[in-house]
């Protein structure tokens, strides 16, 4: 005689149903990806300052390694880690930003006695430093998905301001599929 399924066997389907109901309750059909703690394989580690590649495939975030803020790069769905050997020894890292397919990872690193803007070109395995002229301290940055522009928040004399730089003479673009066919849009999605 077969016994009926116990509570432990019922739990996973019930949990799935609960998660489904919860996901459906979000507005506009927004779906919550399972907790990064399980999906991305970092345990209960604290992680901060997320950045996504333009296509949403890669996730960069900051975790603590030996007490220092360190950027990690992962496949968003599988959690697989991508090595970033050129960034070792330049912690603390901050403000990661990715191009469309993740070829470029721009971030702030600590070099000498100050923060510096660098771009890690993962295709050529190069680290491009972008030192700022003058006594200005970069706080945050954002790389455009096509890698044509970089916006940097700078502090000078206690005041924050944002400046934008064209990178087209420094970096090959990380082309966004269909961008040149569609042309610039204003307020409409394909």
């Amino acid at each position: 005689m077969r016994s009926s399924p116990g509570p432990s066997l019922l739990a996973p389907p019930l949990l799935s149903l609960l998660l489904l109901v919860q996901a459906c309750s979000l507005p506009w059909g927004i779906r919550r990806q399972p907790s990064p703690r399980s999906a991305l394989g970092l345990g209960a580690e604290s992680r901060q300052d997320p950045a996504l590649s333009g296509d949403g495939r890669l996730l960069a975030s900051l975790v603590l390694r030996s007490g220092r803020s360190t950027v990690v790069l992962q496949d968003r769905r599988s959690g697989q880690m991508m090595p970033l050997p050129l960034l070792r020894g330049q912690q603390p890292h901050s403000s990661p930003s990715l191009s469309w397919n993740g070829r470029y990872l721009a971030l702030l690193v600590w070099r000498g006695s100050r923060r510096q803007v660098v771009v890690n070109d993962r295709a050529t395995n190069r680290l491009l430093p972008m030192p700022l002229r003058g006594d200005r301290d970069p706080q945050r940055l954002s790389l455009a998905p096509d890698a044509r522009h970089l916006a940097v928040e700078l502090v000078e004399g206690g005041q924050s301001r944002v400046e934008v730089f064209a990178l087209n003479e420094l970096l090959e673009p990380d082309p966004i599929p269909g961008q040149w066919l569609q042309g610039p849009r204003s307020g409409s999605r394909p």
Partner: protein
Amino acid sequence: MSRPGHRMGWALAPTPGLALALSLLLAGCLDNGARPLMGLNLQLAHTAVNRDPALSSDWLALIGGREGREQVRLVRLSQGAPVPLTGLNRPDARPVSVAVDQWGERLALIRELEGRSELVLYRRSLQSVQPIPIEPAGVPHRLAFSADGRVLAVEVVRGGLSQVDLLELP
């Protein structure tokens, strides 16, 4: 006869805009030759505070304004001009972190309102603001959009631990 240097100094002195432009030109370049967008940077420099930039193709979202009265701003790089964000900014809210998709259509925003932090999604063409609940409950601190506007990553603090929530949008 006046020396050329004197003449130039006299000419520059009463034009603070020109002095600001020169200052940006001299100090703004990255040493390896990245070229500052002078017109846009000058325009941004006229705001008391600008912070937390988020670039996506032709769009720059940032938080700017006077201390204590900051707002989300969206600038189209190719036109060097801000676009209106009707219905997004509230005088009783303090923006914390902003992100924009590559079409400048969707903006995600964390803001402090009535003593709590909330995550909202703004659709520019609809001028609509939709709150997104944080579940399990936590305090959102920072966010990022994929350029295609399909995925949102949010740093959320729960019980003293920072985590990253990932949301997929239709």
